[in-house]
């Protein structure tokens, strides 16, 4: 369980996150909001790229914010990026192995774990193929494979299906839905595709201008007046 308390992030005069307090229960949780709402900043705080101005984050009882960012991956925080970051110079296998070897796990299981992660996301082609031979969708899946290899405890997915055609988005949704159960990690999904969020997430939190405006079961949250206003705007906008 991830407990976020009074989390505030300011960049100069801009307040990206404004006293956000919420808890994520095991399972897949959605995090939505209009552009600039602070979703990626929230991920950056969890993965260590941004130091919050105030607030605490406790993950499964441990203080996440006191860990150096590269240690968080070892502890079990994994993330994907809005623009996918498959390492072009490495093979598919090595892209995933790279993450595995920097987690705490020993080398003996590496090959099995890496192939398992590739199979989990449905990348069944040649593991020694170079990244350049992959399609955009396969690269996205490769990033998810990197996020689930080994034994992650917290998987942060930042718009994993952005720009993908419907068919591949559906496959991505199926992969995401299986993460909590088969990988055992609490998964937080940021996406603008509401059908993907409602298909994957049991609970959803909504950010708007750095403030939490709604949280709860996904279906209820998506019906919330405030949420609809935040997305569609009001008459004066």
């Amino acid at each position: 369980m991830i407990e976020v308390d009074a989390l505030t992030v300011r960049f100069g005069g801009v307040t990206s996150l404004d006293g956000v307090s919420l808890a994520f229960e095991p399972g897949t949780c959605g995090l939505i909001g209009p552009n600039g709402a602070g979703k990626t900043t929230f991920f950056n705080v969890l993965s260590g790229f941004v130091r919050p101005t105030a607030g605490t984050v406790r993950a499964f009882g441990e203080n996440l914010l006191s860990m150096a960012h590269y240690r968080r991956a070892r502890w079990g925080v994994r993330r994907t990026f809005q623009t996918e970051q498959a390492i072009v110079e490495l093979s598919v296998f090595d892209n995933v192995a790279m993450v595995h070897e920097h987690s705490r796990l020993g080398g003996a299981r590496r090959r099995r774990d890496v192939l398992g992660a590739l199979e989990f996301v449905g990348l069944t082609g040649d593991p020694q193929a170079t990244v350049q031979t992959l399609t955009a969708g396969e690269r996205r899946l490769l990033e998810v494979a990197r996020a689930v290899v080994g034994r992650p405890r917290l998987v942060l997915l930042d718009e994993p299906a952005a720009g993908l055609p419907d068919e591949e988005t559906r496959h991505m949704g199926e992969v995401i839905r299986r993460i909590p159960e088969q990988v055992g990690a609490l998964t937080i999904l940021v996406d603008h595709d509401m059908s993907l969020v409602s298909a994957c997430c049991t609970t959803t939190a909504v950010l708007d201008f750095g403030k939490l405006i709604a949280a709860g079961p996904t279906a209820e949250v998506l019906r919330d007046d405030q949420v609809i206003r935040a997305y569609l705007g009001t008459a004066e906008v």
Partner: protein
Amino acid sequence: MLETASPSATEGERSPRWHPGRGLLVRTGVAAALLLIALFALPQLLSLYYIDAMTQVAVYSIVALGLGVLVGRVGLVSLGQAAVLAIGAWVAARLLFATAQPYPLVLLEAGVITMGLGTAIGLPALRLRGLYLALITLMLAGAITVVLTTTNFPNGGSGFLGYNAASVHIPAIRRPSIAASDPAYYRYSVIIAALMFLLVLVHIRTRPGRAWAAIRQSEPAALAAGINTTLYKLWALALASFITGVAGGVMAGAVHYLYAIDFTTQDSITLLAVVLMGGAYSLWGAIVAGLLLQLLPALLNSWGVSADWLTILFGAGVLQVLTTAPRGLADQVPKDLARLGRLLRRLRRPPRAASEEGAP
């Protein structure tokens, strides 16, 4: 290309390695053949003049390899590698005069000491990248050149510096007893170079290589993967400095006498240009860079052409490479040859092509 069994079938397999593909076998075969030619055929074919030049090619291939690790693998542009080479040569010369240690041990010590100093020079790399890092390392290289000019290289004198300005009969820096002659020392330096290439190859193919690839492309992605970027950048600096220090040690024995005037700050810049030309992303590129840096001037000298033309040639070469073959000659030339081969085959084969020839 590679045959891979389904994950379920390979799960029980113990070996963490893949079966080597055909490409890998071919590359290993070509490398082994070239090494054998370099070791046994070249000393028979070449005159002493070119054998000495080839010894320098071996030395500078190692230096280019080190810079290739920094620029091509990690993305750290250093303009101080010639100064690091000078440090390695200085340390080796000092140890060779002061002690009777076996030559390989001296090379190892020169490598380790240079590793410490070279990593310290590279420390700004932890904070800076790109142009700023290049500028800082260039200035440090300049500072080292100044220091070397005032202290001079050891010439058998006493004290820490080992320099005796009054000595008339300067003793030569010794060579290993098994490699006293020029051809033998050439073979010796090729073997050392091969060992350094092997050391770097092992790094690139394993954990540090993957970490470097991630750091070069995207530091956030590397951090998110759990890579301690500071540690791996230091590691790359240490590796590059180590092999460059060893190269300095090989150079000390090769030339017998070292002078500060032979190590200019400009060399560091030329070195980067030539490494980019050869190809910073491949190990072959380092050998190409070594040939361009040392064999080409020797050829020009023997043809009576001033080696000063090389600065212009390298300048034009870098421009050409950066615009048309960003991965360097080592990558581009085989591709061009393959394209040429296809073209020739097409011209020879079908009569259709002949009928099209009439078109302007």
